[in-house]
């Protein structure tokens, strides 16, 4: 049987044949694979600042196995002939990421092999300071950059490091490579920077995500209809554990498994899950906790319903 996977990054289409080995192993039920379209590597640098906390080569090796597993699971159950990967992405978030930009190519290769778009988060100040490394990163074929305003968590920006002309030069450099830009942090900063008036920026589609860093002014939890599906992603954290969403990151009993595990031995395979993923996906969590959150280390970075769910789960830990 002829077989192909099809992926898309923006409007660019990628397709390739599926091996006969993968076809033989295809299963009728995609299981939990269908719930997780995207991956997020939430990482930090190791102590030497020379690699990620989970080394890039280990993430790449896991991604290779994950891609093969995902194809087996998601080939069209109806015809077993094709699958559409839709707009899938793998995001990498890590402070000072540019320091290890030469290693990102290895991960990018696996991301693209899975027909996903590679997305990274960078802060504007680092990009201004290290243009050479920024160019190296752009060479890896990154599809989307979340560009963070300087000192988004503080009230005063750093005016001398982020002078408008240096800021504009970075933004122009990124848009010239046809990379989709998401400006994160205060909208006001980006308006004042002049970046939003650049013709190259306005000629393309771009996004702004004011709440992605800093305080969000949290969303109120008023109604019992908060399906988790829109927030579900595979979050690979610094300890190598995989979580179904950022709201439960760090709660080991909610992990789906580890990148060291064979995928068949994780919740994505046959292991029982502490969380009822299908119910959460369709209807959201049933909240028992009061709205008094106390000192939550996640602060305002999550919607209130997720923070309350987390509070409930902490009791079960």
């Amino acid at each position: 049987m002829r077989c192909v996977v099809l992926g898309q990054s923006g409007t660019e289409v990628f397709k390739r044949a599926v091996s006969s080995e993968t076809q033989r192993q295809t299963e009728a039920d995609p299981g939990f694979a269908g719930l997780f379209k995207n991956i997020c590597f939430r990482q930090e640098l190791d102590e030497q600042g020379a690699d990620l906390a989970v080394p890039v080569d280990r993430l790449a090796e896991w991604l290779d196995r994950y891609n093969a597993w995902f194809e087996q699971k998601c080939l069209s159950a109806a015809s077993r002939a094709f699958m559409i990967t839709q707009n899938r992405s793998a995001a990498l978030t890590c402070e000072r990421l540019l320091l290890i930009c030469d290693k990102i190519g290895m991960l990018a290769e696996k991301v693209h092999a899975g027909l996903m778009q590679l997305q990274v988060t960078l802060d504007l100040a680092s990009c201004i300071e290290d243009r050479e490394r920024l160019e190296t990163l752009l060479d890896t074929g990154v599809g989307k950059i979340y560009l963070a305003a300087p000192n988004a968590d503080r009230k005063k920006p750093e005016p001398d490091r982020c002078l408008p002309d240096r800021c504009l030069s970075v933004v122009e450099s990124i848009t010239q490579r046809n990379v989709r830009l998401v400006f994160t942090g205060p909208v006001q900063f980006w308006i004042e920077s002049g970046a939003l008036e650049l013709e190259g920026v306005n000629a393309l589609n771009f996004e702004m995500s004011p709440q992605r860093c800093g305080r969000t002014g949290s969303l109120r939890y008023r109604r019992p209809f908060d399906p988790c599906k829109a927030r579900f992603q595979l979050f690979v954290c610094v300890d190598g554990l995989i979580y179904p969403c950022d709201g439960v990151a760090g709660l080991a009993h909610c992990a789906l498994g580890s990148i060291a595990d064979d995928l068949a031995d994780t919740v994505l395979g046959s292991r029982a899950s502490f969380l009822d993923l299908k119910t959460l996906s369709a209807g959201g969590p049933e909240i028992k906790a009061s709205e008094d959150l106390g000192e939550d280390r996640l602060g305002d970075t999550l919607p209130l319903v997720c923070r309350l769910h987390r509070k409930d789960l902490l009791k079960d830990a």
Partner: protein
Amino acid sequence: MNSEPHLEKEMAICYNSLVIESTTRCNAKCAHCCQNSGPKGSDLWGDETLTSEQMETVVQDAARIETLGKRFHLAGGESFLDLEGCLRLFELAKQVGCTEIANTTNAFWAKKPAKAIAICEQMRAAGVTRMEVSWDYWHSAYVSPDAVSNCLEASAETGIFTILRVLTTKSHCAPEALRMLRTEALAKVGSVMVGPVFPTGRAAQTIESSDFFKTDNLKGACFSLLNLVVNPRGNVFPCCAGLDQTDNLNFGNVKNESITEIAERMNNSLLLRILVFGGPSKLVPYLRRSGIEIEMNHTNMCHFCRYIFSDPDRTRILEKQFQRLERVDRALRGFRTKRDGGVQASRE
């Protein structure tokens, strides 16, 4: 094994979301409106509005379409001209299992903060998870920036994720529209999505052509970006990016038949398959072969697609060519089936 399959012939067309464009009417008559909407309806189609019964039938029937994601989006014109009707539809979408329920509005109804909160509360209770607010230089002639700011703040207060949609031309960039809104409201927006105005609809008549951003890269495909769209006339399309505003490529109307049958017909259309899996640029050779000259200077592939199908002659030529190809394909399949059956029988 042949590793290059007949993708366009065999893969199911999948849709992210069901989109209903309930009406051509809008309280505003923006100069850039791609839908030509206004208080008296569309400049081209007049006042076209789907009835509540028609929309409810669509939502219920569409839940049975396996290739459709569990998302529902209500748009217009300005669908909030009938708030009660919107709320009933959102409730129904929740009941049939949609996990994301969204709408597009210009926020005209949010003139007072208290009223904005009250309406957002009702929407949230009905199941709305996301609100897309249209706001830019052209909307500001009809909707006050305070109403938009009120809407953004009320949505955040009631737990509805907001997307502020801003359109631009060379002379009207995003900051011009953003500066009109309250800083506190902008801080509560979930996402701001900015893109260029297409030179289509009313924009093509009212905005100088030199003011549009243009590109010469019209390659690419849209198979992963599709939505199953019912326009205000009841016609069904695979997207809401411009094709839904044309009259020529017609797959069926929900006033006459179920959306499930129409979706099936769309899935069987070779023309649509080539369009979504190959992109509109794949249709150019078919048109040129028939002696049709094609302009290649468009804003993007969506604009290019609308350009192709807004012309009845271009559409008719493509439909004829693809109907012929479908006949050939059916004959070949029949031949192969007979041949393979014969081989199997001789082996047995």
